[in-house]
């Protein structure tokens, strides 16, 4: 197990939890990034402003990381463009059909013990494990 970084992972996770908790405390909203993203680009009355602001915050946070912690963007593995196009389509479509992603189901959903989110999280991790197995060990890592 190389590259194992438990302390920074735990610290970053705590920040993600605090941000999600603050969004609930202040605005009563669930920090599901897929839903926030969809709501920001497909506007609905009264539902759009907070989502656009959150996405803007993610981008500004990314700019801060670029200056303060540039290693955040040492991607390590970048798949070929064709694979990234397919991956993006699957992530966009799948998170809408399944009502959530790693943040909405994986953090907020499990954090409130939602059965749907627990099932969804187990399902997308299993699906991800199977996909990585196929890509890395059957297709030779797509390099």
């Amino acid at each position, binding site marked *: 197990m190389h590259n194992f970084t438990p302390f920074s992972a735990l610290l970053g*996770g705590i920040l993600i939890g605090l941000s999600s*908790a603050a969004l609930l405390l202040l605005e009563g909203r669930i920090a599901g990034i897929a839903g926030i993203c969809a709501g920001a680009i497909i506007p609905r009355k009264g539902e759009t*402003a907070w989502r656009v602001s959150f996405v803007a915050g993610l*981008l500004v946070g990314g700019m801060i990381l670029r200056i303060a912690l540039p290693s955040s963007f040492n991607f*390590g593995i970048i798949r070929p463009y064709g694979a990234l196009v397919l991956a993006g389509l699957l992530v*966009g479509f799948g998170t809408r059909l399944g009502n959530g992603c790693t943040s909405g189901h994986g953090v907020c959903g499990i954090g409130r013990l939602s059965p749907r989110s627990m099932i969804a999280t187990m399902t*997308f991790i299993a*699906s991800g*494990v199977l996909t990585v197995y196929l890509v890395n060990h059957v297709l030779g890592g797509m390099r």
Partner: protein
Amino acid sequence: MKASVASFVCGIVFALGLGISGMTQPSKVIGFLDIAGAWDLSLAFVMVGAIGVYFVAFRMIRMRRAPMLTGRFSIPTRNDIDPQLILGATIFGAGWGLGGFCPGPAITSLASGAAPVVVFVASMVAGIYLYAMMPNLGSHETKMAAPAEDLSAGAAVGNR
């Protein structure tokens, strides 16, 4: 206005958490999912930290009648396991494993200006639109709880 500023600040903190935890690096995500390769357990620690904080905070926050800046909580109340949930999670997991990005880290990583991230996010947006254009799928909305009648939180408030 206050609510928009709050969302903005939450977004910044969320992005910093993603960067510090290593989740903006597809090698860490793929490393976690690659149980047959050089397995990297870090992502599990991210989830433990995030879920742990949220688990405690959720129970405290739900004792309030309303959030601080808005009139009501918008929390999903569905408990049914429908085929869309399973199929959607399966499709999402496949894309997550293939690209190594999920929505939050992908948007945050746009700040790097790297072309592969731009391609991934553009495709993700196309996937979101594709879903919205499908008439039978695009109509189902997540039910939200009215204040004080939230099913999933009922148990939480009960065993405080």
